[in-house]
Structure formats: structure tokens, C-alpha cells
């Protein structure tokens, strides 16, 4: 297989955006083409989860490719729940690595704020099993709440650890002009003060408001090219070196040990093996912290820390911007936002920005290997990517 490089990057702010879905996909694509210095692409993959339901837009890829006047390039929409973004990158990787295409555009876009919160919650809840979970009123926060309670019982994670993740990611988001949430929070304000229950009410006990990501609109784009095309670029070379994907049972109840995220473990192992690097080589990572507990658990499952040790590493500050392995430098889903279909592409955007050395105030030092984990459903479909800076 051929090597695959990232040639161009584009991103909208993650926020509430009053543009049609096609434009949320189109603006970052235009930016990425300018960044890569290309005026044509061979193929377009568009990651999106809710266009047909939330925005009454089907066949998004066909609309985007024409809006960008890139016809007759091939175009496909990819829907894989909240892991759509990384799934689309995986498709782009396969297209270039196989030799089928030389220049591939991968866009992720989502416009969730077009509907109200009840509909948005219900839309995401349709990821759950229709008969064994959905009919009971199970939503993604409720699965995360039940998961968190077990994790607290088994490994001694506390609400304070969860709040520390939120504080860290909000601090990182303050350094990211594209992040949805620009709000400084403190442990006192969301946990200790008498007003904490008002500031930070329960969503799905024991998870509170500041343990959950916001509902965002946004778009992100990466352009992937072959080695030959990459050599023409003036940008620092970043190679998409490893791709891993794994699945787990649809329902959470059926997992032998419900505190294990086996799909994360398997997907990460595949990606590291393919890239021929170890978790300890990683200098910057974006993990899918749709709920604060997930950042802690994923940091263990992908191999940065031992199982049950993630919250200890967090306490020691190892995952902060200046720590040993900075996690979610963009602010993560918690601070940067979570436009579901765009999230995976957004994570890759942050990692490539960091590896190129273009992250300005939130730049980590000496990172040559970056990692993303994009988590679909409640851990039933996970895609992990490894990026390596060359030269």
C-alpha cells in the first residue's frame, strides 16, 4: 500500500451556526484546498450523521461536490454515528493507499442546532437498541451515567476527577479560537460552592452538566494525498500512518464487563501496530470526551495508562498542555464542541495542526506522533488514527 499524507486543513468554528448544512461542509473544504494549494480533487467523502433527519438534506456529498464546482469528481456520504468523521478519513486513506485516487477530500459537517434540545437528544438516542434500550427512554447520557457509576465503584474515580477533566478541557478551549465553549470554570464553582448544584445540575446521575459535551454545529476538512503529490507541498509533511477500527455489542448490558471498552482497545491496538509506534511514543492525543468519564477511560484503553490509573495520571497533571501526554489540546468535545458527524475530522485537524507546529498558544512541544480516538454509539463502533510528522 502507498503512504498517505495530509496536505490541507480547514475548519469552521464549532458553535451555533446559521448556515445551511452544505455550506458548513463547503467552507472548510475551500479553506483546505487553499491550504493544500490544489484546485481539483479526485474524490470527496462527506461525513454526516443527521442531515436527513435534522436538516432534511439527503445525498449531502452530491450537494457539496457541486457547490464546490468539483464535478465530475466522485463523492460519497459516510454515516457511522458519531464516528462518521474518522470513518470517512479511513475511507479516504484506503482510496489513496490503494492507488485508486491521488487527491482525496474528506469533509465532516453537522448542523444539530437547527432542532430543539428534545429533538436533538432523541436523535442521538436513536443510536441505542430500539427494543432493549431506546423504548425505556435510554439516551447516550444515561448510558454514560450508568457506566460512570460502575467505574466509580470499581476504580475509585470520583466526581472531582470528572470535574478536573472539564476544567482542563475548558482551559484548553480558551486557547482555541474555533472552540464552542469559551468559559473559564473552576472546581469550586462547579463542585464545591453552595451554588454548585445550580451551576452544575445533574444530567444523568452521577454525571452533571459540565460532564457533558455541548450540542454544536460545525465542519472540518482534511485533504489526503499520495507521496508523489505530497512532495510538491511546502507544508511540513504529516503522514496518516495508522488506521484501526473495531466494534462491540450494540447494547451496553451485553458486555461481559460493562466497564471495559473493548472496541477502543482493539481499534487503538490496530492503529498503533499499523503505524509501528507505541502508545508511549504519542506526544499529543485527541480523545472522544463526549462525557468527561470517557477521556479517563479511553486514556487507559488505548494504552497511555494502565487500566484504573487514568484518573491518577489526571491528578498528576500528565494530560495537561504541559504534561507528559497532552490530551484534548483543542478543548476536546467538552470544550471545542461535538458536531457529531464532523467530530472525527475535527480531531484529526487538531492533531495535524499540532504536528505541523501551527497550534499557536496551545502548541505542545516536540510532538512527532499524534493519536485520535473517535467513539461511535456508546463504544460500539470506534475508529482510531495515528499521525506521524516526517522530516
Amino acid at each position, binding site marked *: 500500500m502507498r503512504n498517505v499524507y495530509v496536505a490541507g486543513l480547514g475548519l469552521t468554528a464549532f458553535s451555533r451556526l446559521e448556515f445551511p448544512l452544505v455550506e458548513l461542509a463547503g467552507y472548510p473544504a475551500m479553506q483546505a484546498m487553499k491550504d493544500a494549494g490544489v484546485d481539483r480533487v479526485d474524490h470527496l467523502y462527506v461525513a454526516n450523521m443527521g442531515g436527513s433527519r435534522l436538516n432534511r438534506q439527503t445525498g449531502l456529498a452530491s450537494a457539496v461536490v457541486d457547490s464546490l464546482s468539483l464535478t465530475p469528481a466522485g463523492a460519497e456520504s459516510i454515516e457511522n454515528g458519531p464516528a462518521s468523521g474518522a470513518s470517512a478519513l479511513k475511507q479516504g486513506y484506503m482510496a489513496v493507499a490503494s492507488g485508486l485516487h491521488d487527491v482525496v477530500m474528506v469533509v465532516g459537517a453537522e448542523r444539530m442546532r437547527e432542532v430543539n*434540545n*428534545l*429533538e436533538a*437528544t*432523541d436523535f442521538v*438516542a436513536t443510536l441505542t*437498541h430500539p*427494543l*432493549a*434500550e431506546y*423504548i*425505556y*427512554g*435510554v*439516551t447516550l*447520557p*444515561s448510558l454514560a*451515567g*450508568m*457506566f460512570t*457509576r*460502575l467505574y466509580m*465503584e470499581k476504580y475509585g474515580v470520583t466526581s472531582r476527577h470528572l470535574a478536573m477533566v472539564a476544567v482542563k478541557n475548558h482551559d484548553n478551549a480558551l486557547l482555541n479560537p474555533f472552540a464552542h465553549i469559551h468559559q473559564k470554570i473552576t472546581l469550586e464553582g462547579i463542585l464545591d460552592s453552595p451554588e454548585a448544584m445550580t451551576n452544575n*445540575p*445533574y*444530567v*444523568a*446521575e*452521577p*454525571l452533571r452538566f459540565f460532564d457533558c459535551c455541548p450540542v454544536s454545529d460545525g465542519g472540518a476538512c482534511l485533504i489526503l494525498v499520495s507521496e508523489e503529490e505530497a512532495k510538491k507541498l511546502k507544508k511540513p509533511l504529516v503522514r496518516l500512518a495508522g488506521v484501526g477500527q473495531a466494534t462491540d*455489542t*450494540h*447494547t*451496553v*448490558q*451485553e458486555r461481559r464487563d*460493562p466497564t471495559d471498552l473493548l472496541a477502543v482497545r482493539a481499534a487503538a491496538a490496530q492503529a498503533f501496530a499499523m503505524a509501528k509506534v507505541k502508545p508511549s511514543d504519542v506526544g499529543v492525543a485527541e480523545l472522544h470526551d463526549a462525557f468527561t468519564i470517557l477521556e479517563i477511560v479511553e486514556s487507559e484503553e488505548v494504552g497511555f495508562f494502565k487500566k484504573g490509573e487514568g484518573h491518577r495520571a489526571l491528578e498528576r497533571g500528565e494530560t495537561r498542555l504541559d504534561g507528559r501526554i497532552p490530551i484534548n489540546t483543542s478543548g476536546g468535545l467538552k470544550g471545542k464542541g461535538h458536531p457529531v458527524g464532523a467530530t472525527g475530522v475535527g480531531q484529526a485537524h487538531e492533531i495535524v495542526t499540532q504536528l505541523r507546529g501551527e497550534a499557536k498558544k496551545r502548541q505542545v512541544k516536540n510532538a512527532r506522533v499524534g493519536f485520535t480516538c473517535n467513539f461511535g454509539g456508546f463504544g460500539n463502533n470506534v475508529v482510531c488514527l495515528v499521525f506521524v510528522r516526517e522530516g
Partner: protein
Amino acid sequence: MDIYAYKCRKCGHVNYPYRLVCKKCRGNEHEEFDPVPLPKKGRLLTFTRLHTLPADFLVATLSLGIVELENGVRITGQLNIPEPAIGMKVKGEVEPVRTDEFRKHYGMVFSAEEGPAGSLRRSRPVGKRSRRPPH
């Protein structure tokens, strides 16, 4: 009323929820499963109280949990327990759990096996909201 699980005729594994191919032996001949009613008693594995509900639920909070039933099968259900605790003994009944614009959906609702049953599964209604007319 019962909730059914699907017992594989080849290996005896009880599949819940329904799937096309047995999780254990991958037996996938047609009609290879016997429907068997799930037991009603079990122990609470984990739980949450949900404060942000999807559109069909006109209540302030909803308690949900995963229960490990006597035969080892796990099921997600609603809880009618004021103070749930991990490991407590619970007993289920099949009741309406969700009403959408088309019909009532039935599912398992658990209460504590010992002591008085609480009424916190559905807390006080949040005012009267207008609903879409029934079809």
C-alpha cells in the same frame, strides 16, 4: 406479560435482545431460536437518574438501570425505586414504558424486592404540555 429472550437450539445460549445469529455458537439456520420468557427477579448492576429526557417523556426525571436476572441475562429497564443501590435485589413487571404518537411500548419496570415500592420512577409531571393529537 413477559419479555422474551431467544434460546439457541444448538448451544442453549440465551440471546437477549433478539439477534439473527447466535452470539455464542454463530448458529444461523432459520428458526434456530426458541423464545423463552425472561425471569423477573435479579440484582441491580448499575443505575442512573436521568434529568434530560427525550421528547416522549413528560416527567422531570426518569430512573434507569441494568439488571442481571436470575439466569444471568442482563436487561436494561426503568426503575421504580426511591433509593437504588448497586447489588440490591429487584423484581420486574412488564408495563408501558413509553407512549409515542402511535402506541404504547411495553418493557420491564423494576421495583425493590423487599420493602415498600417507591414512586420515583416517574416523578411529578412538569405542568401540562400540549401534545400532538393522536392519529
